[in-house]
């Protein structure tokens, strides 16, 4: 896993030890909160409460906020109308969090045990250690993670039943065997953080290993153009699906799209082109580098896209035949529940997982050698700050806390299954504060 540079392991071990102590210490609030930590979407409290959950598998017991952020809109303007205590399900009631990913009635049936899976983060944009940590956690939780567009490191093959292979416009790392491995193949048409702009891996991050994986030249910037040059229409997309089906007839197909004004039409088009999953990626999320102008300004936030798509699919009488997954700013268990109440079947997580393993949301991912916490980097020394086993445990703990909270939310709403929450906007309340 290491390349070119010789690393001094005692120094790495020293830093790892201090970092892990810090991740445990800060959420105790003994020293207050780091004054420069956090932003409107992820205030310091939310970051610290995520570290807490990643450390313990439980929601915080001190006053740390772990349900919503401070953005003043979207999920942060919504809450649940819980039933009076007497009408809620008993604390020991069985509550089911599983959702099906293939509702078409044809082909392979895949169910995930929790209503989320991990979003695409490519090898190159994150380290192999991070990919491994995510894959291990996905396996443990009976769900998936996604390769992103950067190839499929060999170390991931043992987790292949829990890995979605992404095909994006640059086709980096897409090979027959990576499609054959995949229970689900995701076509990335666009991504929320940079809708309509394509991808760009800076030359500095295209190390020898990354280049080999992507079948490109080391230290040369790589572009994933926007959009697929072979797709002009729904019919062209259908050809893409056929191509995947030829290689792997069993694979489910997910279509990842951004959230333009006609996102509802896009979803319907995806369905008729043979998608099992339409993955809506709203504009406020994303872990990779993106132009600031795109994140804030292009395409609509996910909170608005979900009900638009849900209602339109209902009006077309196809809502129960396609799975809608939502991403782009889903930060907490409460956000997951709100997204589902707005009409999604489940969500796709990215940033929350990175925060669990140490991200401070400092936005320096592209600076110098990459992430100083060893996350979004290909630097051989920095990557060692993340031990995959440790990372997997942290993500699993976060999952455990989310699952616990979701069960609690459902129980307080009197629902026995997460599937019963879908589209239940009547259980939400808008906060006029």
């Amino acid at each position, binding site marked *: 896993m290491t390349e070119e540079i010789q690393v001094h392991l*005692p*120094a790495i071990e*020293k*830093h790892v030890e201090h970092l892990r102590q*810090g991740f445990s210490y*800060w959420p105790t609030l003994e020293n207050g909160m*780091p*004054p*420069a930590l956090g932003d*409107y*979407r992820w205030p310091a409290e939310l970051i610290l409460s995520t570290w807490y959950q990643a450390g313990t598998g439980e929601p915080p017991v001190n006053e740390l906020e772990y349900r919503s952020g401070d*953005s*003043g*809109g979207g999920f942060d*303007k*919504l809450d649940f*109308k819980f039933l009076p205590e007497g009408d809620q399900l008993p604390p020991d009631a069985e509550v089911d969090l599983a959702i099906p990913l293939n509702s078409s009635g044809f082909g392979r049936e895949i169910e995930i045990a929790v209503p989320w899976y991990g979003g695409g983060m490519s090898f190159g944009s994150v380290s192999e250690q991070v990919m491994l940590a995510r894959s291990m956690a996905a396996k443990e939780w009976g769900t998936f993670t996604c390769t992103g567009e950067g190839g499929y490191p060999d170390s991931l093959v043992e987790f292949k039943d829990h890995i979605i292979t992404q095909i994006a416009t640059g086709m980096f790392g897409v090979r027959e065997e990576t499609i054959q491995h995949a229970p689900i193949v995701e076509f990335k048409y666009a991504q929320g953080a940079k809708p*309509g*702009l394509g991808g760009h891996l800076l030359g500095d991050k295209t190390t020898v290993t990354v280049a080999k994986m992507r079948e490109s030249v080391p230290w040369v910037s790589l*572009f994933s*153009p*926007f*959009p697929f*040059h072979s*797709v*002009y229409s729904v019919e062209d997309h259908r050809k893409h699906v056929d191509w995947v089906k030829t290689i792997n007839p069993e694979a489910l197909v997910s279509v990842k799209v*951004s959230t*333009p004004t006609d996102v509802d039409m896009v979803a319907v088009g995806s369905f008729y082109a043979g998608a099992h999953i339409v993955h809506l990626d709203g504009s406020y*999320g994303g872990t990779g*580098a993106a*132009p*600031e*102008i*795109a994140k804030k*300004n*292009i*395409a*609509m*936030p996910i*909170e*608005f896209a*979900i009900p638009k798509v849900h209602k339109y699919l209902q009006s077309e009488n196809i809502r129960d035949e396609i799975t809608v997954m939502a991403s782009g700013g889903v930060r907490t268990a409460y956000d997951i529940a709100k997204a589902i109440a707005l009409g999604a079947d489940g969500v796709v997580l990215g*940033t929350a997982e990175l925060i669990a393993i*140490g*991200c401070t949301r*400092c*936005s*320096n*991912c*592209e600076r*110098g050698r990459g*992430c*100083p*916490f060893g996350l979004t980097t290909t630097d051989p020394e920095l990557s060692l700050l993340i031990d995959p086993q440790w990372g997997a445990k942290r993500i699993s703990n976060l999952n455990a806390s989310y699952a616990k909270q979701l069960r609690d939310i459902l129980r307080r709403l009197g629902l026995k299954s997460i599937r019963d929450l879908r589209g239940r*906007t*009547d259980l*939400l309340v*808008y*906060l*006029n504060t």
Partner: protein
Amino acid sequence: MATTNSYQRYHIDTIPTPDFVPWPNKFDVKVNRPQLAKLLISEIIHLKGDMKAVTSRPCMYGTFSGPIGGFAPRPEHCVGCLRCTVQHPKMVTITRNADRERLGDSYFTSAYVDAVSYEADTGSIPVKGAGYRGKFGGEGWDGMWTDMSEIVRPTRDGIHGREFISTVVDIGEKPSYLIFNDNGEITSAKPRILSIPVPFIYDAPPASAASSTLNEILARAASETQTLAVMPIDGDEWSVVSDQLPVQSIVPLIKLGDESTIEHLGFTPSMVEIDISDDPNSNFQNLISSIQSQFPDTIIAVRLPYDDPDNLLKLYEIGVRVFHLFADFHGRGQDGRFVLDLIREAHLTFVEAGTRDEVTLIGSGGIIAAEHVPKAIITGLDLIALDTPLLVALQAQFEGDCANRKTSQFAMPKNLPLDWGIQRLKNLTATWRDQLLEILGAMGLREVRRLRGEIGRAMFQVDLEREAFAEIEGYLVEAGD
């Protein structure tokens, strides 16, 4: 600026041009020295004298890499990653520097100042990881998103198709038809029109910032980017400076009552701007005629506040075709409305009169970030006259809240170097254009002219929220409206 016979791709050379005046650091770094000394001693013991490990520091950016390491941190290197404070909670404290956050004013906040400074410094689009960090939406520009297409791109050529997008805009008279005689010759008046390769010009600086050096920076940067710089003309000085300045890029700004100054101009301007803001209803037809007789090919623009749409039609009637409409520096009109509404009103005034395609609307005031440019054009402007962003690119300091164009106080750096200033404005222009290309590319549009007034390519928070949340208990019409 002038049309050419052969195709040339428009390009602005960007060169890194760091700040001329040191600005406050973004972060303050405090280290508890006794704690650090203790840590070092304990590490020497535990790491058995492995000094490579002992001196390995958490900061990758050099904050603790001075001669005595963490005992004298160098906050100018800190990028706020927080790794040091995560690792050593009781030893290192990182805070946002209040002095830095005081840059700008209540509208042009320090976050916007940082963005413009970065753009003017690097000429690059600000790119960051980890998603969006700001408020969900908000008023004005913040409650508006631009559309994109999943599969349409401007052209199938190039990597992204962006390479071939045109950002050319036309300024001047655009008659809806021409009249030809039997020989096929045009007999109607030849329209006065010019094209510039970017949809922004540089506006005249406010009085507190103005200087001959600033004028020269504006004029030369405008010339090198092939745009225009509006400049107040000050009597006799003009015949002198015009010898040294790239006059084709200068748009003399004439106030009512200063008509005679036009006679002293030592050059034929491409465009002249008449400021009628002190008396928007005055009769200045004679002035137009006299300028036109002196400079028959010169385009005449009229500068006035947004607020009076009826007056726009009256001005159209007397032959005005180029309107420079301005709000205050915070984007507010005289009646307090935000510039987004004001642009829309002006645009629709001409749409309803059936004359929108014949006029050019230039707007200024409140447009302080790259994303505001496409939003203003979608709302109805043809192009923008940049004002305060130019000053910020040149490291102007705001003295108090600077909303009012006449009374605002900006302190420009002393001894502003000419070449530095020109390059900073070139960098800013290049990166704002590049960001416009990103927006156009995402929409699949091949030229900015097609964006004008295309309100269907925008999404507004109030509409989206109503559509998404109207059936949710507690959602009030007022909340959405």
